[in-house]
């Protein structure tokens, strides 16, 4: 009597034996066409380009620009496997999270290159963060600053394979691009007034924010994100570079953040971006139960 394992094996072998269906004609490489057919195809493409150009020029087409009007190069490729493995929302977006790059117009952050157009996601909204995009880029001017004698100033260096989170609003944009280690080190957090927003990798179901002067806060993770309402900093508003106080309340920075899995087990604790503790050797946590909606 066969088991489902036997039946599955038989089925896999049957499929493996089946001939691979020919690709539809529109997927055939151009080089396989005769010279006459190539010329016909090119002529057709020219007509399409002539029709499409006005649409692109008025911002309806998929030419991406940053909000300073500079063209942002695009990439049809996938993010590095490490980023896909860390962020379920990138790998397998829930309904409504997929963002068509053609709709973005001139709203991207300056300094990014090679935005991966098939991996732009709308993050779950939270108070203070109503429209946040997550995307990855092949590189960006977000590396450590270095003195450039030619410019006579410190300039940012190029950094590869960044994860970007960007707020998109009618009144402007804001956001940041970081490398993967910022995510895995537990340091990916941002705040707008007392509202906070964080990004965590798959496997984290809840986070506990620990404060020096206030009670802990426990927040549930949704699609790799969590949000919280912070406490006002005891020291009051911080000063900006010009000596003026920043507008709005300044939140107290959590002293550490603990990641929990879906069963309430501690995955790790992060203090100022450093991992303060790790799960015991051999511990197995259920990945991803974290990101229930």
């Amino acid at each position, binding site marked *: 009597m066969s088991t489902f394992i036997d039946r599955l*094996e038989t089925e896999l072998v049957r*499929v493996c034996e089946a001939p691979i269906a020919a690709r539809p004609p529109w997927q055939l490489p151009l080089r396989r066409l005769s010279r006459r057919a190539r010329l016909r195809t090119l002529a057709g493409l020219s007509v399409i380009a002539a029709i499409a150009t006005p649409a692109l020029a008025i911002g309806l087409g998929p030419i991406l620009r940053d909000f300073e009007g500079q063209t942002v190069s695009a990439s049809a490729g996938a993010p590095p496997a490490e980023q896909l493995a860390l962020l379920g929302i990138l790998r397998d977006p829930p309904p409504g999270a997929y963002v068509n790059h053609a709709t973005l117009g001139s709203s991207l952050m300056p300094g990014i290159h090679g935005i991966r157009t098939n991996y732009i996601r709308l993050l779950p909204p939270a108070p203070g963060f109503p429209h946040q995009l997550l995307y990855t880029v092949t590189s960006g001017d977000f590396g450590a600053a270095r003195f450039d004698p030619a410019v006579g100033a410190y300039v940012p260096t190029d950094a590869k394979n960044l994860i970007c989170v960007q707020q998109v609003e009618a009144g402007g944009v804001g956001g940041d691009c970081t490398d993967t280690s910022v995510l895995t080190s537990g340091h990916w957090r941002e705040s707008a007034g007392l509202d906070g927003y964080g990004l965590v990798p798959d496997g984290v179901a809840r986070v506990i924010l620990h404060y020096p002067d206030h009670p802990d806060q426990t927040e549930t993770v949704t699609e790799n994100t969590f949000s919280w309402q912070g406490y006002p900093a005891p020291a009051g508003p911080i000063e900006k570079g010009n000596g003026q106080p920043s507008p709005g309340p300044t939140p107290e920075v959590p002293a550490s953040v603990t990641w929990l899995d879906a069963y309430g087990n501690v995955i790790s604790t992060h203090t100022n971006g450093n991992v303060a503790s*790790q799960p015991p050797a051999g511990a197995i946590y259920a990945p991803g139960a974290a990101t229930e909606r």
Partner: protein
Amino acid sequence: MDSMAHDDRELLRAARNGEAECFGELFRRHHAVVLAFVARRVDEPEVAADLLAETFAALLTIVRDRRRDLPISPLGWLLVTARNLLIDRHRHGIVVEAARRQLQLAPVALDDRDIELILEAGHSDELLGRIHELLPLEQADALTARIVDELDYDVIARRANTSQAVIRKRVSRALATLRATLEH
């Protein structure tokens, strides 16, 4: 082709070149470990069976697409893919079936005996047991931390008080040893 005498990648290459039985051989080699991996992480046997089927179907879609590179370490690839499918199942409440649909694979039907088999797989220590049985301690620890616990290299390195390069080498050696051992 005498599939028993070949490593995993050779089996996949042969399957790509029309020797379908070689994919069957790869399935026989690794289904128990993949099933143990998923069965211990889900409550329902039906879900574990779906995850097992989708994982191998995903590998088969790569085998059948000549534009895509074959995985360097098929066992590692299977475990990482199973892990990703598990996460997506937790997020959406259902097991993704993209690969099975693309291949038009028949659904997995389970009887009482199958369910018992899956429950046993979930409770067995086949995965960790085989790793520790086959590998030196430091390689087994590195592989368990990377593949089973899914920790980053830098975290494993800090924990073992050594460099990431050493951990990567241990994991790589562990996979090579596993491959060699499982193939002979």
